[in-house]
């Protein structure tokens, strides 16, 4: 049995090619698919609320994770929207992003997409309570609650709001309880500060805790 197992392992090692998925990148896109910033990703807007993102040198990203949040490329606060992501079937160097309105119908929206493969993506991260308290973070220096469902988060990188992509999730900052679901959208503010908006499932501004992740160029 031992010999059989060993042989199987050797056989598997020979026939299974080693695969390297070491590329991580990001892109910030306007609703019409115009790229605002990122790691040379190309965006094609091929239908209402439907986008294809191609990696610059044909990097294989089908084994990576995709984090996307509806948001704007600048400081304009977008309407509540949802973004989802999936790898493309025919092309492993592409990611498909879909954006939806309040009713779940396809609708054009800006978005921030982070493709996470191996390695680390420099940038920052923060966990913020529903009252705007910065509970913890990576390179995060402050957070504020500026109105119902309205927050700012400030990072040490003074150019983060205009040079990076940031995605967010509704969530609690501790290790108990569960959060009500809702929309979360992002926008730039100024300097190292970004704006985050949270809404209930009906699209009404609502105070909800959230966590945010930022990816910046190396």
């Amino acid at each position, binding site marked *: 049995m031992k010999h059989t197992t060993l042989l199987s392992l050797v056989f598997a090692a020979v026939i299974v090619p080693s695969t390297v998925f070491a590329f991580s990148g990001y892109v910030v896109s306007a609703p019409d698919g115009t790229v605002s910033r990122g790691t040379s990703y190309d965006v094609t807007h091929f239908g209402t609320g*439907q986008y294809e993102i191609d990696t610059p040198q044909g990097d294989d990203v*089908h*084994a*990576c*994770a*995709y*984090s*996307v*949040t509806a948001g704007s490329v600048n400081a304009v606060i977008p309407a509540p929207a*949802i*973004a*989802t*992501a*999936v*790898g*493309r*079937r*025919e092309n*492993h160097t592409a990611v*498909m992003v*879909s954006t*939806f309105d309040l*009713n*779940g119908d396809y609708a054009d929206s800006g978005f921030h997409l*982070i493709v*996470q493969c191996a*390695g*680390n*993506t420099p940038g920052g*991260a*923060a*966990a913020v309570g529903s009252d705007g308290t910065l*509970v*913890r*973070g*990576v*390179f*995060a*220096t402050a957070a504020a609650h500026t109105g119902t469902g309205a927050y700012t988060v400030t990072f*040490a990188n003074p150019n983060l709001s205009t040079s990076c992509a940031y*995605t967010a*999730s*509704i*969530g*609690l*900052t*501790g*290790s*108990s*309880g*569960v*959060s*009500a*679901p*809702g*929309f979360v959208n992002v926008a730039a503010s100024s300097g190292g500060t970004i704006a985050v908006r949270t809404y209930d*499932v009906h699209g009404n501004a609502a105070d909800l805790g959230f*966590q*945010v*992740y930022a990816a910046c160029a190396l």
Partner: protein
Amino acid sequence: MKWAGRFALAVAAAALASAANADGRLTNTSAIRAVTAPPPGSPHTTYYIVVNKKGRRIRGSKGTAVVPQSAGTNIATFPVDVTGCEYVATLGRATTDGGVDETAGFVTVVGASGFSNGVYVQTFGLRGVLRNRPFHLLVAC
């Protein structure tokens, strides 16, 4: 054996972490754990996991796993204590031969109760009802 032991631990911890409300919805119960933020400028590590709608890990960083709980609820586990980390999840199909859009819905995250290496992820339909949905989760530590 190591993997099996880790999985058994994960299942046990997951069972401890969750309890059902009267309405049948799972809760994530236990005291909030004190966490310490790393000083600004500290190096950090990003982990990720991609989970399909059946609560099965499709891919992810080494040492990641997932323990399905009930409708729309999963605990993703990581090879480190993640209580001081940040979590961001996105709805999205997990198959490597995707290509079909994931419809709109919601996803929420919170540290898993009594489970220092876990993230409690819940996915919802557009009306806010728990639904099994695939997701991609990033964890920055």
